[in-house]
């Protein structure tokens, strides 16, 4: 067994392995696969029942367990949640490992994993990944008509 704290490098190497065997599109298909087969079971019931409140609950639990350093704001009048990940524990851990390189598009999985589910409920996302090489990112989830 590897500990759950060792999962992030295992995950990063998985993306590298798939890209070595095929290409980046194959990695994106893997992200779609885990979105459909795993994330959907956990996120979708919350979103289906409570909309953006469900998103709030989902990330409150996940980011707490991951010991993330972040600030989130939920404005229910605007129907939007903004998030500033000041230090992503996953990317931060990969950057700390000086003896191995993170997968070049490691943070790309965040955009794919959740949007496939949220889109179905009219919840859209915008992401700013310009500082992911410092383990920092921003995102905005908002409710809108298709």
């Amino acid at each position, binding site marked *: *067994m*590897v*500990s*759950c*704290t*060792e*999962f*992030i*490098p*295992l*995950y990063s*190497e*998985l993306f*590298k*392995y*798939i890209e070595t*065997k095929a290409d980046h599109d194959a990695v994106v298909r*893997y992200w779609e*696969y*885990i979105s459909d*087969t*795993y994330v959907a079971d*956990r996120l979708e019931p919350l979103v289906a029942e409570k909309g953006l409140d469900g998103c*709030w609950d989902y990330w*409150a639990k*996940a*980011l*707490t*367990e*991951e*010991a*993330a*350093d*972040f*600030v*989130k*704001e*939920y*404005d*229910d*009048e605007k129907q939007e949640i903004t998030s500033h990940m000041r*230090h992503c*524990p996953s990317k931060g851990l990969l950057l700390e*490992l000086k*003896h*191995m390189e993170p997968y070049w598009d490691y943070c790309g999985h965040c955009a794919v994993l959740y949007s496939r589910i949220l889109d179905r409920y009219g919840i859209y996302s915008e992401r700013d990944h310009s500082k992911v090489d410092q383990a920092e990112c921003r995102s905005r989830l908002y409710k809108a008509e298709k």
Partner: protein
Amino acid sequence: MTKKVMDVRASDNKYLHRDFHASADIGLRYIGEKYGDNGVKEYLQTFARAYYKPLFTDVGERGLVALKEQIEKIYEIEEMPEVVHVNLTDDELDVTIDRCPAVTFFNKTGHNTSKWYVELTRTVNETIADQCDLGFELLAYSEETGAARYRFFKRAF
């Protein structure tokens, strides 16, 4: 109008996201179904050779005790130190795991463990042993609980 704010520092919480065990297993299943048993081995060998480099150095300098500490640390992190029993001699490290924290989590949450999950014990430890010029033998493994017995030993050749 309601405005909620959640402002959390990393130091506010312990890093222990057990869902990652299931994510690891899903990755193994995907590779196994797409690239076969050898694909799983190749992926985990590549991971272990890269990730455990500092451990190989440590074992080279301090011997089997470094492996013993690494294994015990895993179960401390998982908050189940009582399930691991190790016996260290000059030439051998014997390890018994009463039940695997990840498989315990799978059984509790209903996750269907893949047949490749054992490779996180077998292939990863085989690779670590090989990189440290040691032998490794998986003596027993229960797919139901993740209970395991294995040993690292100094090679006789």
